[in-house]
């Protein structure tokens, strides 16, 4: 108001000197003229003040992204007039702050973590001498970074830190997936990066807060080695073939497995199954790149005839040898049935590692000539060769419930959104089907569990595992032995 009055006075004072002053103008014309002039001067004044403020201010956007004072990270938004960061941008040390996400944040950082305490009858846990029977383990701390870059470009990543308390070099930090999605339409989308391989359902939905028991199913640890991811690209999408049905598919071409150590020793064996043949387990010198010129192909087709029912088939095929053609194939089926508070889920998988029992060309492992049968690698059967055929499955029943008296007792803790789940799961694997004698890879497990979810994203679990067929890698001699075992497992997991 003050500014307007001053400007008005200035304009009136200036009027006698302007050429537009005419004797025949009416008072109304003069007033209109003055008003227009004041408004014009006011706009000029505001523009001028704005420029001055931007010059004086510490956080204003600049014409060049790398020039000017440092921005308040995440607070400022890039103006339309400011050009995007490019190779043509100039600036000094502040250029590092000129990233698009500083001025226009897009990413969401989330994640999950878990913590468990387990007590076994036998000393199967890692430790000195005969191993330990019980202990705490903060197994997974997993930050996620997700971003919607545009309506059609998405980014997603999962960084996993396993057993983070361990010293440098002993813990496991890996990028489990990191990919860029280009959404074309619902039936066809493109994905490239480090991809979670679509083999079975558990590999795709392996987060601890989603699992109703603490341990992953045996088949998802040893036959489909969750988390199994590889670098590559492919397509995924959804079709709706019927009124209530849905068909999802994923199809990827990826780098392929890493089936042998540098000396040619097979990585697939009856103790660890296919775990060590994952791309992320390759020798350091391979830099996570392809060990041969072959690529792996994997895909999953899931059909849901109606809400609550889904069956899926999936497969993986790729050469695992650096010097010969020894393909590893994994085939799986999985199912999910939900009806009211009941769920039945499960997965079965078959792996065939062709030629894994024989020495590959160029190997230096224990002096085996190429093509000869490898023996002496099984911890319990010196005559057994490395695994070629592996099989396993699990079947799990869940029942969700919430006792009414608990809701009445504390509606906040046991109200809507919270639930108890009773779980029973049967697990069975055979990690060396060709070894019909003493076999370290024949495992059987029955788990009884109960968990409480205050919200869907957080869970407290307790379970008892009965293991009629198990394997202890830590007996006195360190060679491993077959055992009967049992374990009490208590854990918590939450997304954050």
């Amino acid at each position, binding site marked *: 108001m003050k500014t307007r009055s001053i400007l008005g006075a200035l304009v009136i004072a200036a009027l006698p000197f302007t050429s537009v002053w005419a004797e025949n103008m009416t008072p109304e014309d003069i007033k209109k003229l003055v008003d227009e002039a004041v408004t014009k001067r006011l706009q000029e004044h505001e523009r001028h003040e704005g420029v001055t403020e931007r010059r004086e201010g510490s956080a204003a956007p600049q014409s060049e992204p790398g020039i000017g004072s440092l921005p308040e990270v995440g607070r400022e938004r890039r103006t339309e007039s400011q050009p995007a960061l490019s190779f043509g941008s100039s600036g000094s040390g502040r250029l590092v702050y000129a990233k698009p996400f500083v001025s226009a944040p897009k990413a*969401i950082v*989330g994640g*999950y973590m878990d913590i468990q305490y387990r007590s076994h009858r036998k000393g199967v846990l890692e430790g000195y001498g005969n191993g330990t029977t019980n202990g705490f383990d903060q197994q997974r701390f997993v930050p996620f970074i*997700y971003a919607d870059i545009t309506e059609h470009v998405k980014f997603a990543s999962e960084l996993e830190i396993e057993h983070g308390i361990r010293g440098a070099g002993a813990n496991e930090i890996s990028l489990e997936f990191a990919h860029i999605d280009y959404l074309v339409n619902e039936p066809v989308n493109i994905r490239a990066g480090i991809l*979670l391989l679509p083999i079975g359902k558990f590999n795709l*939905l392996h987060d601890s807060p*989603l699992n109703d028991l603490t341990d992953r199913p045996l088949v998802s640890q040893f036959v489909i080695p969750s988390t199994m991811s590889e670098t590559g690209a492919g397509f995924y999408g959804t079709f709706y073939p019927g009124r209530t049905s849905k068909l999802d598919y994923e199809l990827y071409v990826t780098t392929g497995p890493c089936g042998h150590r540098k000396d040619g020793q097979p990585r697939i064996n009856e103790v660890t199954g296919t775990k060590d043949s994952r791309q992320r387990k390759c020798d350091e010198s391979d830099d996570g790149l392809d060990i041969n010129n072959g690529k792996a192909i994997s895909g999953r087709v899931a059909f849901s005839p*109606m809400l609550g*029912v889904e069956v899926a088939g999936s497969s993986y095929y790729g050469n695992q040898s650096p010097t010969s053609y020894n393909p590893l194939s994994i085939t799986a089926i999985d199912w999910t049935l939900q009806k009211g508070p009941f769920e039945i889920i499960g997965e079965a998988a078959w792996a065939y590692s062709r030629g894994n029992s024989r020495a590959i060309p160029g190997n230096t492992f224990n002096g085996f000539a190429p093509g000869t049968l490898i023996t002496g690698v099984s911890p319990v059967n010196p005559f057994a060769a490395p695994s070629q055929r592996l099989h396993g499955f699990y079947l799990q029943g869940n029942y969700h419930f919430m006792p009414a008296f608990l809701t009445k007792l504390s509606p906040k803790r046991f109200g809507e959104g919270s639930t108890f789940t009773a779980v029973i799961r049967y697990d069975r694997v055979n990690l060396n089907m060709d070894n019909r004698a003493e076999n370290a890879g024949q495992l059987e497990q029955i788990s009884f569990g109960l968990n409480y979810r205050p919200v869907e994203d957080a869970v407290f679990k307790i379970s008892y595992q009965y293991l009629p067929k198990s394997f202890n890698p830590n007996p006195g001699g360190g060679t491993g032995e077959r055992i009967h075992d049992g374990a009490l497992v208590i854990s918590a997991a939450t997304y*954050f």
Partner: protein
Amino acid sequence: MPLPRIAMVVLALLSVGCAALSGIREQYYVCSYDSVWDAALETMKGQSVSTYDKEKGLIETNWQDVPSTSERTFGIFGREGFGNNERARMTVSVKRMNDVASVSVLETRQRWHSRGGVTQQALKWWPIDPSEEATDAVVDRLNAKLKAKGCVPS
């Protein structure tokens, strides 16, 4: 019991189970097929209809953004995350049954990022339970239109 008979029994049980699971709302009208079809088509007028086939008795809408039926936030801190988007499409099926016509109404509803937390699978549409209110609204409109024509739902 011979195997084919067992298979038939299993199939019958499955089909009964399927109907119960799918959330379809079914109504019968003592009315001509043409009247019921016209009323059904009129009921769906104003919505983005993708398919209508009188021979098959099928009317389907496109996916449409709909208000969320439930609040779903991201993580235990309840952040908004990728939003709480839902979409739905409606399927109306008219069947000829002698002097009676049946109409089944089904809403298929999906939510973006409905799964807890974030997983690779989060970035897709997840099926969720259909909205009973939305289904009832269609059935009520249809009933009103047919009542005006003198057709009573049974």
